């Protein structure tokens, strides 16, 4: 029997398990999946928990519920991959061998990377919402909070779901308005980026929205430490922002086992160097990487994971059959941006095309506005939960093309289009 091993049973691992289960010959292949526990969180739901829109129990299910019958599931933590010997070493000491390995160990916030973030105020006046615990505790805090300076801060530029902090700001504005205390809350959005977002056209639109909602953006702020005594965040060049309540998006890092396996990228964030088109590991041809665990220059998001899955299944089958890896991932990402008061915006982009305005065709729900706030986009955002549990995790195809399409998009006018004329600029910076 040949062995295919999947590390991590989150979005990407579970989805690949379901896809492979349908495609691989069981007489020839044994598939095993490993995770630390049996709890699957719907992470996009973490955004809604602090505002009481979802209850904590709405986002938790058993991982096993989404596995095909007869799945070999090991509950243990991966300690290390030994790529030269085709071995995976678990914390319990067990050693597994593989013919093909899929790494889908994702990324998690690591607040201990920043001095003072986990100081005396942690989970008292400083919260994260990227974890189940953080989001749930923040919900309790907000219930009784009387107002003051709310600071939303991104510690690093590479984070999963890069729009989630913006959505948090928009939802906070709506939440306090509906509570009748918006005038008592000052919202500051403090980011290491030069603006509200990364790419120019989306940044322009989102900045206008921030201004309209009276959310103050502090750009180019690279967090050095949190001062718990004076309740302020301090940047490397000495800028300071005071807070009463700090909502932090801590440094996001890949799994420790990536560092143990000597696979980390050179900025030590534990993201795995991966071929951005084929999803093959850069050193070992029988290792493939998918989801937030990669170092691909696109968003770390569930939608991206889905598009990658469509490519990866083809490439793994080609690899197993000794054929060249022909399917190529284009970096496609598709993200709803919840903007509060029952509306949302939508962005769709890939490695080379930045988010553009226009229309996004979707069957049934039908055309969604790109870079526009609409009610139908909000419905799309809420529908994503159902799609996630019932289609994405189970490895079904979604009615959205895998490669990004220009249909409905309005390309920028000539002068806004300068980046296009200088392709080397976009290429590298990704």
């Amino acid at each position, binding site marked *: 029997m040949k062995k295919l091993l999947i590390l991590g049973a989150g979005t990407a691992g579970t989805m690949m398990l379901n896809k492979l289960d349908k495609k691989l010959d069981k007489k020839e292949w044994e598939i095993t999946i490993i995770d630390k526990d049996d709890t699957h969180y719907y992470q996009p739901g973490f955004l809604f928990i602090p505002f009481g829109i979802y209850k904590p129990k709405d986002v938790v299910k058993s991982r096993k519920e989404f596995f095909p019958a007869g799945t070999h599931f090991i509950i243990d933590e991966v300690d290390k991959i030994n790529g030269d010997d085709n071995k995976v070493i678990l914390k319990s000491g067990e050693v597994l061998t593989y013919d093909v390995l899929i790494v889908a160990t994702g990324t998690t916030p690591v607040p201990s990377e920043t001095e003072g973030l986990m100081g005396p105020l942690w989970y008292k006046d400083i919260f994260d919402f990227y974890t189940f615990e953080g989001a749930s505790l923040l919900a309790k805090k907000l219930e009784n909070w009387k107002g003051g300076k709310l600071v939303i801060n991104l510690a690093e530029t*590479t984070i999963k779901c890069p729009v989630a902090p913006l959505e948090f700001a928009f939802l906070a504005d709506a939440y306090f308005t509906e509570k009748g205390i918006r005038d008592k809350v000052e919202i500051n959005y403090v980011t*290491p980026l030069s603006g509200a977002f990364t790419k120019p056209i989306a940044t322009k639109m989102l900045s206008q929205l921030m201004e309209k909602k009276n959310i103050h953006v502090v750009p*180019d702020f*690279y967090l050095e430490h949190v001062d718990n005594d004076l309740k302020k965040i301090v940047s490397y060049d000495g800028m300071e922002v005071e807070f009463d309540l700090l909502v932090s998006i801590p440094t996001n890092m890949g799994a420790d086992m990536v560092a143990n396996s000597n696979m980390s990228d*050179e900025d030590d964030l534990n993201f795995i160097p991966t071929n951005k088109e084929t999803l093959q590991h850069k050193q070992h041809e029988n290792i493939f990487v998918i989801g937030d665990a990669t170092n691909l220059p696109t968003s770390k998001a569930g939608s991206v994971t889905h598009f990658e899955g469509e490519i990866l299944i083809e490439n793994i089958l080609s690899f197993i059959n000794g054929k060249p890896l022909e399917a190529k991932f284009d970096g496609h990402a598709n993200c709803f941006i919840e903007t509060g008061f029952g509306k949302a915006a939508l962005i769709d982009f890939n490695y080379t095309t930045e988010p553009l305005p226009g229309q996004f065709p979707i069957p049934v729900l039908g055309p969604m506005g790109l870079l526009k706030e609409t009610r139908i986009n909000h419905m799309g955002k809420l529908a994503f939960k159902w799609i996630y549990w019932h289609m994405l995790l189970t490895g079904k195809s979604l009615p959205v093309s895998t490669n990004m399409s220009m249909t409905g998009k309005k390309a920028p006018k000539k002068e806004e289009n300068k980046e296009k004329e200088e392709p080397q*600029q976009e290429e590298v*910076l990704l």
Partner: protein
Amino acid sequence: MDTLTINKSAIKVNEEGYFTDPSQWNEDIAVEMAKQQNIDLSEKHFEVLHFLRNKYAEEVPLTIRKVGKSGIVDIKEFYKLFPGGPLKISSKIAGIPKPVSCV
């Protein structure tokens, strides 16, 4: 596209003043570019500039954190060498495009 004349060579730059052709760069040009930012280039500055250019050539995405892990400077020193926006300013002086984070 604009042109910038430094030491009599015509450098092609974009509207923000970043080189569009990194091969036009040399150390003398860097010294002149740095002067415009009120920076006197030391050996440390040059080590950083060469690090950036090498990573750029290898298509490695650049971040402040990465420079901080380069073994040349830590993040605080990087800010001291290129005050304001260290990565943006140093990339301009290093003759490479402006680093933007991915979405």
